[in-house]
């Protein structure tokens, strides 16, 4: 733990620090996975008051573990920040901690998703360049989604994550450890309970939940279609590359058709090239973003479930209160002595005494329950309000993002077809002019 913390503060320009901080030098290294190519820049035209940039992944090898850290640069005009610019380094587990904290503190907000820890579709090598790049982009998106969020961006933990020095941050993290565990357990208990009782939700949330379920199904289907198309595309590409060799072989025996055949071979090669671009850009531009949206929708589902739990809490308390009230009225109208069971159990007491005692018990229970009902109702209403607002917001972002993904997909296809068309059009005159 301590070793990794030391590394957190080491950036590429201070390699001396490694030697001082680590006893086992030989096994230690910081490898700058790439030069400037992994370096990002802030968008000059971006007018948001809080901007976060994640770039420059570094590989850390210590005797205990190997991991990647990312540089996080923050640029802000908000008054709650002392400075305008911050630069820190964080690793994936720090992101995980932040996300868990946020989902515990804001159960009914839709928390942006993190990239999955071990993706089934990825290669096994976690230090592969593509894997790191893709994860870096997703982490960048995660932080910026938080930055754009009206509530989450003001969260203390998020802000600490962005600006704290490694030491500060680790102490800060420790102060939450117990709470985090507790929160997790209670949440999972609630989730278990929710499967037993599924009370009627209001129409509004029923609709939301239905929509989210269906949308997630659509996204998954699209992902699957994309994968199947990709598979066919790769096979097609491989076959298309065979075209030129075959034509070249034939050319040798057809002096009169030679030029035309050559032109066709070249055109099909250009097409193969443009198709390769499409195949290569499919993953970063379509399948990864779609998959991420699948995860985002999952967090919307979580938020909805947490809201349901709040409602359920309220309903359970309400029901108990009602039961108590019912017993009270029953006792008032009908004397206890009529009750055979109660009578049998309290043989040595006079019925009046028992009744009196019971009434008192009920009185006390009713008042605490009433309080609980009050609290849980507040919670539920709060949850409803939070979720309603956040869902509205999320819905807009979602439409925009999905539109962007689809448009990107269309753009890629348009590029590919433009290049193919140009290649074939260029070949046509040569193919036609032959035979003289």
């Amino acid at each position, binding site marked *: 733990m301590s070793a990794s913390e030391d590394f957190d503060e080491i950036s590429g320009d201070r390699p001396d620090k490694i030697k001082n901080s680590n006893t086992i030098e030989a096994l230690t290294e910081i490898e700058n996975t790439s030069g400037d190519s992994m370096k990002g820049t802030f968008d000059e035209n971006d007018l948001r008051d809080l901007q976060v940039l994640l770039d420059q992944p570094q590989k850390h090898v210590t005797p205990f573990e190997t991991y990647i850290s990312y540089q996080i640069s923050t640029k802000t005009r908000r008054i709650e920040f002392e400075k305008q610019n911050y630069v820190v380094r964080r690793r994936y587990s720090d992101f995980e901690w932040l996300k868990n904290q946020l989902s515990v503190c804001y159960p009914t907000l839709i928390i942006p998703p993190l990239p999955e820890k071990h993706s089934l579709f990825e290669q096994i090598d976690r230090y592969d360049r593509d894997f790191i790049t893709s994860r870096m982009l997703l982490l960048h998106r995660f932080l910026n989604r938080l930055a754009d969020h009206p509530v989450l961006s003001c969260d203390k933990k998020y802000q600490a994550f962005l600006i704290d020095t490694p030491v500060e941050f680790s102490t800060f993290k420790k102060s939450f450890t117990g709470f985090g565990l507790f929160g997790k357990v209670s949440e999972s208990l609630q989730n278990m309970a929710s499967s037993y009782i599924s009370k009627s939700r209001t129409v509004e949330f029923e609709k939301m939940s239905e929509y989210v379920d269906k949308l997630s199904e659509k996204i998954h289907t*699209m992902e699957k279609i994309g994968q199947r198309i990709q598979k066919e595309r790769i096979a097609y590409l491989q076959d298309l590359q065979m075209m030129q060799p075959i034509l070249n072989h034939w050319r040798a025996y057809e002096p009169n058709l030679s030029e035309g055949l050559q032109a066709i071979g070249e055109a099909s090669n250009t097409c193969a090239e443009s198709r390769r671009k499409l195949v290569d850009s499919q993953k970063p531009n379509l399948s990864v973003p779609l998959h991420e949206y699948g995860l985002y929708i999952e967090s919307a589902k979580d938020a909805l479930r947490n809201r349901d739990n709040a409602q359920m809490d309220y309903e359970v308390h309400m029901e108990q209160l009602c039961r108590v009230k019912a017993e009270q009225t029953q006792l008032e109208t009908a004397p206890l002595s009529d009750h055979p069971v109660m009578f049998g159990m309290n043989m040595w007491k006079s019925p009046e005494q028992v009744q009196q005692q019971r009434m008192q018990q009920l009185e006390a229970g009713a008042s605490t329950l009433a309080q609980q009902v009050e609290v849980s109702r507040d919670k539920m209403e709060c949850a409803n309000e939070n979720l309603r607002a956040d869902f509205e917001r999320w819905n807009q972002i979602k*439409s925009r993002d999905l539109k962007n993904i689809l448009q990107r997909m269309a753009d890629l296809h348009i590029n590919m077809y433009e290049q193919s068309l140009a290649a074939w059009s260029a070949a046509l005159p040569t193919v036609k002019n032959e035979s003289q």
Partner: protein
Amino acid sequence: MQSSSSNIVSNNWEEVDRKEITNLVTETNGRKENVLRVKEDVLLHHLDISIVEAEKRINGPLTLKEYYSVYLIETKANDKNWRGGLSPTGSVWRRYSEFELLRFQLENKYPEVIIPPLPEKKASFTRQNQSSDNIDPVFVDRRRVGLENFLLRVASHPILCHDQVLLKFLQSDREWSDLDVNADGGKYVQQAEFKLKSISTSLRLKKPDDHIEEIRHYSSELQSSLGNLLRLRVRLADRLFAIHKLHANYGRVFSEWSALEKTMGDGLQKAGHYMDCYAAAIDAHMEEEDIVADQLKEYLFYGQALQGLCSRHQMAQLEVEKAESQLSMQQYSKSRSLGQDGYLTKLWGKWTGTTETPDDRQAKIETIERNIDEAQVLVQTASTQLSQFSKRAANEVDRFHQHKNANLQESLANYVILQMKLSKLGLQTWKHVKEALEDLP
């Protein structure tokens, strides 16, 4: 409302597209005709030939049904008096095996001609979703086109078009073949024999003709290149077909999704519609591509026809070599008879008790000389035949190359045009999709 407006849009660009493409096609056709317009007076200039229809027929008893297809050949003469007269019109039904028989007869009669190949009996290089069934209507129709093409090629050939059997085949209601039609079986035996012979000739030849060897080599290269190309084409076509069809799933998802959305609904619906179009358009493209593939296939089969010509040439050459060896044998025996004063001969004569009188010897030498003369004549005729054969064959090969270059050039150009068309279609589709998405909030 929604879909109708988008239909109009899509029709519009399709139309523009088609116009452009047809322009291109007619251009290539025009060029081809210029190249092929020869001054020869051939049957095709006097007779319009077309196969208008194919029909399925059933033969045999109920239990042993045999399905086969017959093709209706319709002819119309512009010039009834051409070369011994044509019927003004003709319409006859012929089945595939009759075409085979006709081709076989032409091959036998005109060994020095490259007989145009017939379309395939069984579909080869088929795409996955194509039926390879012999009586599949699509296949039968493509074969109809192929057979018509065969007739047109034969009728425009300067030698073949004058054949009387061909004329009867095209127009006569009654028997057209010189051969016993019953020779269905016999024909195959003959063909087999011929093949056997041609295999052995190439081995037995003393000095194979370089020119013919070159042609043989060319034809095998042509066959292997076209074979590879066609195989690759089928693979590519299958993949491309799958890719396009898979986009229909996007279409489905988009339209289901559009039902969920309030603000995104319209755009998604439209995008889905374009995806459906994208998937549907591949069928037509593939059909057109199949036609180009058939054109290439014809030249694949021409490769076999070239091989046939080479084999027949080799057989003619074998005749010459046979005659030559006969001659040399006779010459040898003559020289032996002349030198009969030898010791051994005398001994032989004494021992057998048949001493040869000078008269006998004279007579024997005379017979040998006569044989030599005969053999010389034989060698002469065979050689002239061979040289004629070579000359005609060379002409034929020239003619073949000329036509092949023009035809293949056209086919290749068509292939390129089809690819352009498909790229345009893809481009338009995705542009429309993008536009549709533009409407989303």
